[in-house]
């Protein structure tokens, strides 16, 4: 529904015009100083900052959904919070519909927020227990001064129907404590959608839900994408939910994107050793054979002490001297798929690295053969 809006914003501050991206993020960075107050920022060098997000770039096209996957501490949530302008970036820019919104204030920020809404992880924390469902879903309309009071009822009914709370009348005047976890999360989604945003940021929206209910909420996200042409930025540590929802997936590690590309390719080819290790760590329901252990050592280090060179190198089974020399940039491996790893950008891979390369290419061939 926002396809028509894309070219409206011609007052672009950055100068470049009308590429068809809804959201474009360039070198987005968030460092938290370890010292507060007067001494903040005085200390220099490693360990002075927690580098939660350390230069992340991507774009979301209208109607497309992007998944951010990674372990805890990878910076996915801070990224989402910056995109919703709940945190201000240390560096980098956010363009929405071509307009720079990185430091937008007051009315510009209001306008931006109308287009970008968020759904959070815990449906038990994010709804006001003293409000009825109607009050909760209606609040954004009041804040943004949209429509008349008597129209709100119809709008809210429509939204509850969209999110599968039917009949809407049955839910309008109930309190959150009368609802199950799945129903609460649907109310949170209805509230996010009531402004008809172009982009929905969902941070682990199904993690707290039970399996039998989660499938329903995941299907709702799919339906919203199709019916409302909504773009979704979906954050999860679960590969399975991301692969179910997203067209594009970015694998994050310690504040950086290690691999980004079409979801099916990222999960099936796994160009980055970290993506491969994550996938290999997931338990399987119907395993014929015993799953071999993932080839990865140690645990994710703190974001205050990010290793030199490739930040994954100390845990990587294919580490070579070149890995610790310089941080590998995110380079294309094909038209839509980019990877930050010397295995794909270095000139002389080690024999271990070559074996990994061959494995990836074999997986790719097998899939091509199967399809």
């Amino acid at each position, binding site marked *: 529904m926002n396809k028509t809006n894309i070219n409206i914003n011609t007052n672009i501050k950055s100068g470049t015009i009308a590429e068809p991206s809804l959201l474009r993020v360039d070198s987005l960075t968030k460092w938290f100083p370890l010292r507060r107050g007067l001494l903040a920022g005085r200390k220099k060098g490693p360990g002075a900052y927690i580098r939660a997000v350390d230069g992340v770039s991507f774009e979301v096209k209208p109607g497309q959904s992007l998944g951010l996957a990674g372990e805890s501490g990878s910076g996915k949530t801070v990224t989402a919070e910056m995109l919703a302008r709940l945190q201000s970036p240390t560096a980098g820019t956010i363009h929405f519909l071509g307009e720079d919104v990185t430091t937008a204030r007051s009315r510009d920020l209001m306008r931006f927020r109308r287009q970008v809404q968020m759904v959070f992880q815990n449906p038990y924390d994010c709804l006001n227990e003293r409000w009825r469902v109607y009050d909760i879903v209606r609040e954004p309309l009041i804040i943004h001064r949209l429509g008349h009071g008597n129209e709100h009822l119809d709008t809210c009914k429509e939204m509850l129907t969209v999110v599968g709370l039917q009949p809407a009348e049955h839910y309008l005047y109930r309190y959150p404590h009368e609802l199950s976890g799945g129903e609460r999360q649907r109310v949170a989604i209805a509230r996010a959608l009531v402004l008809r945003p172009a982009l929905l940021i969902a941070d682990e929206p199904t993690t707290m839900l039970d399996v039998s209910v989660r499938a329903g909420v995941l*299907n709702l996200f799919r339906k919203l994408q199709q019916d409302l042409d909504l773009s979704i930025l979906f954050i999860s540590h679960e590969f399975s939910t991301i692969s179910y929802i997203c067209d594009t997936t970015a694998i994050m590690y310690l504040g950086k994107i290690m691999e980004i590309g079409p979801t099916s390719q990222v999960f099936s080819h796994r160009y980055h050793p970290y993506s491969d290790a994550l996938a290999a760590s997931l338990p399987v329901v119907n395993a014929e054979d015993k799953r071999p252990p993932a080839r990865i050592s140690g645990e994710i280090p703190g974001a205050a002490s990010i290793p030199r060179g490739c930040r994954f190198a100390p845990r990587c089974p294919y580490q070579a001297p070149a890995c610790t020399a310089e941080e590998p940039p995110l380079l294309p491996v094909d038209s839509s798929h980019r990877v930050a790893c010397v295995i794909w950008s270095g000139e002389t891979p080690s024999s271990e690295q070559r074996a990994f390369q061959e494995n990836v290419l074999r997986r790719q061939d097998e899939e091509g053969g199967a399809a």
Partner: protein
Amino acid sequence: MASLVTIEDLGVEYRSRGEVLRAAHNVRFFIGEGEAVGLVGESGSGKSTIGKAILRLLPPNGRIVSGRIMYQGRDLAAISPEEMRGLRWSRIAMIFQSSMNSLNPVYRVGDQIIEAIRTHNPGMKRAVALERTCEVLANVGIDPSRHTSYPHQLSGGMRQRVNIAMALALSPPLIIADEPTTALDVVTQDRVLRELKLQQEQRRISMLLVSHDIAVIAENCDRVAVMYAGTIAEFAPTKNIFNNPYHPYTLGLQNAFPDFRSHRALVSIPGFPPTGARSRGCMFVQRCPFAEELCSSETPRPTQVEDDHWVACHFTQRASEFQRLARDPDTWLGRTG
């Protein structure tokens, strides 16, 4: 296979503000010697309650109201609190999700394990206990020299390993592990589970693994008990649960569980799980696409359908029909809970 623990018609109730919640009702299953049994269910299904009842660690408002928990000739539901205290750690060890935060922050982790060992072995020399401690730490993949570390110096994964080491330290025949890896990242979870599984198999320990994650249960358990609203819906060897399930709830769970390796559409079970058991009829009746009148009026008893395979459903003879229909998403559309 000889069974180590046999749970017969166990009932547990919680009381709060004059109301009674039946958290477990007519629960029956067993854990064989050296076997891992998975207890899978959604939040509120009573799976943690069972674990706590076996350990007799129910909160003050909870109590065992019926049934027996037979373990090595004793009924754990009936013995005195003193006797039970003597059994914990030495005969039944436990690992909880929150265990990694349960270590005492002002004691070195090694000392905490040594204390557990010496409490149950009065007179054992400290040096002997230390040797034992280093051995179990090494078993779970921690450098034994880390026994002098304080909990805050260890990562979450390592703290959970310390807890597993502590559980193993007295070589108990039985371990109750309640969501032992739920708070950990996937990579760490996988490693910790592998270490736990390896020790369980090598030492021929029996384990009750409580988890909401079907895949974790599938990979680590020999048998599975599927819990729903305080009752066991189905209890069978793991292979049967996944390849030949009888209970409509088990069938529904399989459709609802996402897997990034497959591209099938997910189907949710309509409605949501109740908390606690109903007094009459099948617990799943409101969400079951195959429910009939009988299901609301009469509680199904566990029926043995094959060797080692029990199902609490009135219509076990229609299982193959259910299996076929359950694959069709439309089957699950009709009813709302």
